[in-house]
């Protein structure tokens, strides 16, 4: 009967940097209604996001996230860029008969900066892909919630500005029911 040993393999030995990037990151576009010119809408959205607790980070707006995760809102390109940290190691079991050969492969791959491929690589890829997809989905949903709330606030402000361009705003009232918000603005022209 063969024994099996649990070993921890550095992730870069199993997956290329491109592949790791692909597994741990995702970008999704979002729409902004152009109630005002694009630059004004971007400015209002930025203001709403900052008021909601987000921060500026390298030309984008960072949504507060758990450690190891980033959600950046690129206002210029209307894109939400998400990133989750891929684990640095992959744990698997190998039989004693092939343990030495696997260890040699890992050593060589580390020295040459390549990947060992084969079944261990495939299994790491498929397991990590599933884990990362779930984490990215949860991060996307959380970031979307922040973005949607900020967009709602932005539209509210933009409509008021637009109305004030038409004439004197005499009355503003708002009502919410379910997922819809109604804003009624009375303008004296």
């Amino acid at each position, binding site marked *: 009967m063969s024994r099996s040993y649990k070993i921890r393999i550095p992730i870069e030995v199993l997956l290329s940097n491109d592949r790791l990037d692909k597994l741990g990151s*995702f970008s999704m576009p979002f729409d902004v209604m152009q109630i005002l010119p694009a630059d004004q809408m971007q400015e209002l959205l930025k203001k709403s996001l900052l008021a909601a607790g987000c921060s500026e980070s390298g030309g984008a707006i960072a949504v507060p996230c758990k450690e190891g995760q980033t959600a950046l809102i690129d206002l210029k390109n209307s894109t939400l860029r998400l990133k989750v940290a891929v684990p640095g190691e992959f744990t698997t079991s190998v039989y004693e008969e092939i343990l030495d050969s696997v260890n040699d492969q890992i050593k060589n791959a580390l020295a040459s900066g390549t990947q060992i491929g084969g079944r261990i690589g495939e299994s790491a890829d498929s397991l990590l892909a599933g884990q990362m997809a779930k984490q990215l989905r949860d991060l996307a*949903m959380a970031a979307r919630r922040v973005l949607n709330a900020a967009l709602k606030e932005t539209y509210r402000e933009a409509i008021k500005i637009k109305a004030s361009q038409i004439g004197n705003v005499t009355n503003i009232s708002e009502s919410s029911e*379910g997922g819809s918000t109604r804003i009624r603005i009375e303008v004296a022209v």
Partner: protein
Amino acid sequence: MKLQLYPEDILFEYAEKSFASGIDAAVVKHAQYLHHLPRMIEFSEEFAGRWQTLVKSAVKRFVADTFKLRPFLFDVEGYTKRFNSADEHFWNSCEFSFSQRGAERLYELLMREFIEEEPMFLVATPDDGLILSICTNNFGRYSFPWLCRNRANWLTQALFVARQQVVIDRISWQYLLDNPAEVALPLREYLIERCADLIIACSGHLRHLDPSTPGGQLVDVVNDLREDGVPLKVSFNQHDFNGKVTTVRRFIASAEKAFAYWAGEGGVGLDDEKFIRGALQQYRFAEEVREFEQLVSDYLEGRGMEGAIYESIIQNQNSNRSST
């Protein structure tokens, strides 16, 4: 020292204490001698009069605690009028029937430590059931089919509607909505209010559901929006979202059918349908239903969006696999 114990007197003491603070807190003075008492009680001739006086005042107090001065609709010679518990007409509209059986069941509760069997709660009149429910603070023992079959008056039914906890997949008073012709006029408006409150509670529950964790979200919601009303406690015991929505929609359909009947062919007098329509507007039943439906679609949209995002992530991961 010789001590003489009169079971009737002990029962009265126990009843008074139970009405005041429930059976768990009701400890009679001679509790240590209870095991000497007979297992079944035989009442004296004077018992009935004393018992009626005691339970009537207890029920009146309970009605005042439950409904305060909330007015109910009554038919007076074809015309609809409002009366509350301070008005004579309110009490004249219903007759209570308290029997010796209620006292026997309470005696069984007093002696429960020494009697192995559970008290036979259903061997009683609905009004006996009401006093037993008040004493035990458990209004779930009596179903509406049982109450109606045994001709519970409208006020007893209203008290059970007010005090029963609702479990979403078996709303016991839905029986009244399914049999609208059996519902007396004073209870109709109250049921409209309670139906609206139930839908508000369902909407409150939906607002706290997270589309990313569709299972395992069983919560109790307490709707205490009405300052003077008894809070409505709703238990959401179904895991499945679609099952929950189907149950609530079935309830809504049942309520709408009952309301249409009361506002139409089921009218009692000359003008009560106007009051029913007014109550529907006052308690915003249709608006609450719309709000509930909006929340259902928001939830489904959220779940759909999540699914779509997940799909896109998987597609992105699998695009250009040759580069791996």
